C-alpha cells in the first residue's frame, strides 16, 4: 500500500456526511440516533489510533485518554456544576492534552510493542486508581447531568439525546475529522510516514522523530478524550470499566484495524459497524459475541488488510 496516495482532501465528503446526519434527525428512531452518536464518539478514539498507525505505532491503552476525557467532563459537571457541553469538551481535551504531553516524554522514545504496552500499563494504573477512589463511586462510577449548549437547556421531557447534543456531536466530529484530514496531508502527517518507513533518514532530514511522535501522541490523546466526553454525555454515567478497562482499549484497536488507515471516514464507519453488530449480537446470540468479533478480525486481517476502507478504494478502481 502506497499510503501517500491515499492522502486526499475529503472536505466535501465530510460536509455531506454531517449534513445528511443532521437532516436525518427527524426520521431516525431513537436507538439509531443514539447508535450514530455513540459511533461518532468511539470513532474519534479510533481516528486518533489511525494517526498513530500512520506513524507505524499502535497503543493498547487509548482507554486511558478516553477515561480522562470522560471523567474530566463528568467531574466538571458534578463538582463544578458546569453543564455546557462545549466547556465540558474543552475540559476533557485539555486534561488529556496535558497528561499526554507529560507521558509523551516517556513513550516517545519507544516503538513497536513497547510503545503499545506502555500505554496499556498507564491505562491499567488509571483503572486501578479510579476503581479504588470511593469519592468517584469506585467501580460503580457516578452520574452526569443533562448537558446544555450556550445557555440552551433541553426541556425535562426531552430525554438524554437531544437534537442539541446530537448536532453538537455531529458538527464537532466533522470539524475534528476535517482537521485530522488536513494534518495527515501536512508535513507532520508525512513525517509520520517517515517515522514508520525509516526514522534514521528522517533524522538526517533535520526532523525530530521523537518530537513528531510526541505530537501525534498528544493529538491521539485529545481525540480519545473528546470521544470520552461525548460517550459520557450520551450515556449519562461514567465507570472505570466502561472507559479505562483494557478490553475497552482493545475494542478501539479492533475498530481502527477494522476501518483501516486509508481515510478519516474509516474509523467512524468501522465504529458504526461495530456498534450495530454488537447491538444485534447481544440481542440474538449473546453468548457468541466474542466469537463473532474474533472471526471478523480474522477475516479482515486475512482478506482486507487495508481495512473496510480498502473496499471503497477497490470500488474506485485503485489498488489498495
Amino acid at each position, binding site marked *: *500500500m*502506497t*499510503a*501517500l496516495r491515499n*492522502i486526499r482532501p475529503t472536505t466535501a465528503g465530510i460536509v455531506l456526511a454531517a449534513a445528511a446526519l443532521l437532516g436525518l434527525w427527524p426520521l431516525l428512531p431513537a436507538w439509531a440516533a443514539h447508535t450514530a452518536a455513540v459511533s461518532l464518539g468511539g470513532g474519534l478514539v479510533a481516528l486518533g489510533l489511525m494517526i498513530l498507525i500512520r506513524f507505524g505505532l499502535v497503543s493498547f491503552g487509548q482507554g486511558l485518554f478516553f477515561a480522562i476525557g470522560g471523567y474530566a467532563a463528568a467531574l466538571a459537571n458534578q463538582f463544578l456544576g458546569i453543564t455546557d457541553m462545549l466547556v465540558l469538551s474543552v475540559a476533557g481535551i485539555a486534561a488529556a492534552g496535558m497528561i499526554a504531553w507529560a507521558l509523551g516524554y516517556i513513550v516517545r522514545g519507544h516503538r513497536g510493542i513497547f510503545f503499545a504496552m506502555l500505554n496499556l500499563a498507564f491505562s491499567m494504573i488509571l483503572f486501578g486508581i479510579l476503581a479504588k477512589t470511593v469519592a468517584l463511586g469506585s467501580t460503580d462510577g457516578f452520574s452526569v447531568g443533562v448537558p446544555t449548549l450556550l445557555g440552551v437547556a433541553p426541556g425535562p421531557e426531552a430525554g438524554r439525546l437531544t437534537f442539541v447534543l446530537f448536532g453538537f456531536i455531529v458538527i464537532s466530529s466533522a470539524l475534528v475529522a476535517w482537521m485530522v484530514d*488536513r*494534518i495527515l*496531508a*501536512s*508535513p*507532520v*502527517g*508525512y*513525517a509520520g*510516514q*517517515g517515522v*514508520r*518507513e*525509516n526514522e*534514521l*533518514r*528522517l*533524522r*538526517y*532530514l*533535520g*526532523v*525530530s522523530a521523537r*518530537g*513528531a511522535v510526541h*505530537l501525534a501522541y498528544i493529538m491521539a490523546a485529545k481525540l480519545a478524550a473528546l470521544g470520552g466526553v461525548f460517550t459520557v454525555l450520551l450515556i449519562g454515567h461514567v465507570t472505570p470499566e466502561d472507559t479505562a478497562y483494557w478490553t475497552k482499549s482493545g475494542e478501539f484497536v479492533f475498530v481502527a484495524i477494522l476501518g483501516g488507515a486509508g481515510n478519516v471516514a474509516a474509523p467512524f464507519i468501522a465504529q458504526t459497524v461495530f456498534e450495530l453488530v454488537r447491538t444485534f449480537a447481544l440481542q440474538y446470540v449473546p453468548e457468541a459475541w466474542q466469537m463473532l468479533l474474533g472471526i471478523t478480525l480474522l477475516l479482515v486481517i486475512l482478506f482486507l488488510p487495508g481495512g473496510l476502507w480498502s473496499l471503497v478504494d477497490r470500488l474506485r478502481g485503485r489498488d489498495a
Partner: protein
Amino acid sequence: MPEALLETRGLGKTFGAVVAAEDVSVSVAAGEIVGVIGANGAGKTTFCNMVTGYLTPDQGRILFRGADITGCTVGEATAAGIHRSFQIPQLFPGLTVYENLLLSVGVFGHRRPPWWRPLVRPETQQEARRVMEQYRIADSAETRVDRLPQGVRKLLDIAMAMVGGPAMILLDEPTSGISTEEKFDVMGNVIDALRSSGATVLFVEHDMDVVGRYADRVIAFREGRVLADGAPREVLENPAVIEHVVGRRPPRPTDA
C-alpha cells in the same frame, strides 16, 4: 591554505576493544573534494558518523565554520549544513522514488514540522522533480524503492542527502554496488551535481581509479588513524598506503 570549513582535532572513538578512531585530525577547506580511503574496518564510516552527530566522539573536537559542534545531534548537524549519504542507502522503502523526494523536500529542516498547511504544493512537487532530473533517476519516479536496483538506490540516497542544499556533504561509498563500467558515469554525474550546488564534498571510496579521478585530496585511514593525507598522487603512491590500503583491498563485488 583557505580557511577550513570542517576541522577535526584529535577525534577518538572505541567500541569495547576496537579502536574505530584515534587522534583523527583533518581539515577540509570550502570547495574541496576530498577522497577517503582505507581497508574494511579502518574507521571511515565511524568518521562520518561522528561528524554528523550520529556518534559522539570519546575524545577530540569537531569544528564546522569555526564553531564547535562536538556532541551535537544529527538534527543539529543537519541544520548546520552537514549532510550525508549512507553506505547502505537509507530510504523510505514503501514509497516510490518521487514520493521519497517529495517527503524529503516537504519535511526538510523542520524540527517540528508544521501541521496547518499541505505538504504537497506546487513548489515541493517542482523541487522533487528537479532533484530527480538532476540525479537522473526520473525514469524510476513511480517505482517503489524496495524494488529498485542498487545503483538507483545509491543515487536516490545521495539526492535525498542533498535536499536542503548542504554546505558539506559526506558520501559513504557512493559507488558500492554499481558495476565497474557504470561507476565513472554515475560518479561523474554526481560530482557535477554536487559541484553545481556549491557543496564541499568528502567521499569514502574503495575504487582507487575513482578516487584518483575525482578527489582534489586524499585521506587514508588505517585502524582508526590517519595514515596519509595529501595530494592524490602522493597518497596513492605512498608505500604504506599501498601496503595497508590499496594492496590488501579484498575483492568486493557486491558489498553494501
